[in-house]
């Protein structure tokens, strides 16, 4: 479902003497439906970079980035947008939303975007928010004013609202208490059991052990570290 073939990534800093910084070389991996793969490696090894390349947020310099049938590295913007809408979900560490939109609608938005009915979308969003212990009195407020932990949970609810066949999870259990952590882990397990292919970054070792089928050390793709 998610397959990388010999992907490399470098940054060219045009305004600093055109310095070229290679950050990834020869990255290859394959994640099948129902599988959860953890990216490991020291901080700065390129875990987030790899996730961003898969999501199309960073432009791969070479190689193929296949999600389903689409090569993200060469796709048109609208193809990537359709992929993100229908197929590929991404739970980042930070919530980025338009101010003033109520939490319930923030969570329901991915469902509305794929053509789900308004009421069904809001019902599902409400269910997820309740599961993640966001008090109902906050649902009509914008999440921009929430605490960090609350924002993180809203972000997770939003990421799991639509049942994406492929998902990217960036530290989904960070800064969560035991109860909410448990909820998130069961959400991941549910996604796996319905056949989602998942790539994630988990610093939480226990969590990683529980939901991940394999680990891939991205240091292997880091230029200068591989040896």
């Amino acid at each position, binding site marked *: 479902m998610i397959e990388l073939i010999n992907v490399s990534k470098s940054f060219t*800093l*045009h305004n600093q003497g055109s310095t070229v910084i290679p950050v990834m070389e020869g990255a290859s991996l394959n994640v099948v439906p129902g599988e959860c793969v953890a990216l490991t490696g020291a901080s700065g090894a390129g875990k987030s970079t790899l996730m*961003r390349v898969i999501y*199309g*947020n*960073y432009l791969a310099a070479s190689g193929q980035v296949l999600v389903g049938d689409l090569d993200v590295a060469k796709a048109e913007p*609208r193809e990537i947008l359709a992929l993100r809408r229908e197929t590929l979900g991404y739970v980042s560490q930070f919530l980025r939303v*338009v*101010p003033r939109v109520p939490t319930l609608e923030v969570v329901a938005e991915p469902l*509305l975007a794929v053509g789900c009915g308004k009421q069904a979308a809001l019902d599902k969003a409400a269910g997820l928010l309740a599961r993640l212990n966001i008090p109902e009195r906050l649902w009509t407020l914008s999440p921009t004013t929430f605490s960090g932990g609350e924002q993180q949970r809203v972000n997770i609810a939003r990421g799991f609202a639509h049942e994406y066949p492929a998902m990217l999870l960036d530290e989904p259990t960070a800064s969560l208490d035991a109860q909410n952590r448990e909820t998130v882990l069961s959400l991941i397990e549910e996604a796996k059991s319905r056949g989602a292919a998942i790539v994630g970054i988990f610093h939480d070792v226990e969590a990683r052990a529980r939901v991940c089928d394999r680990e891939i050390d991205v240091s292997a793709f880091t230029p200068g570290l591989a040896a």
Partner: protein
Amino acid sequence: MTPLLQVKGIEKRYGARIGCMDVSFDLYPGEVMGIVGESGSGKSTLLNCMAGHLEPDAGQVIFDTRADGPVDTVTMSEPERRMLSRTDWAFVHQHARDGLRMSVSAGGNIGERLMAVGDRHYGDIRDRAVDWLGRVEIDASRVDDRPSAFSGGMQQRLQIARNLVTGPRLVFMDEPTGGLDVSVQARLLDLLRGLVREMGLSAIIVTHDLAVVRLLADRLMVMKDGHVVEAGLTDQVLDDPQHAYTQLLVSSVLQV
């Protein structure tokens, strides 16, 4: 799928000076594209060429019309183009007073496009004007007030209502949030985003505000000295800019 708009090789010169050069792209239904660049980069010239306000020196602006399919709007007759700009197209000006009739009530401003396409029932026109005031979050009691009595943000929302009342498929926006307070901007952006999704609008937004495009635009085109230097997915262009100028532009934004 047929692109809603196909721009091919647009060029506009002002004497020896280049307005914009060799701009080509396809816009698909429901897509929102941002055009960013500094003052004088040619982004407004390009917008005006596409919207039929300026005649390009070369190139085609092919619009997928409801009746006849894709037609080059540069060479179509002026009456046809003006009809298009009153029905399927909309243009939101930076300064609301350029896009509104300041001596006409809010209801009359919204109703004008309806009357222009032949609506002749006062009651219906007024009902739709009131409905649209609600959709842009202006109290229905203001329907008979003139826009000169409105705040800047309200004027801009009224301009949007006036433009969208005929259900256009393509909206051109020239710095729609320019000159507004930050809090007013946020409300306007949120409103625009909602309307774009609800109505399935395609839009081309010219701005120098990167925050605006990040929130509104799916795609981004970066212009410098009349040329497109970089184009792509909005978040990709902003987070992983490839061109020197885009890197400079992105790094010049103050982080808050």
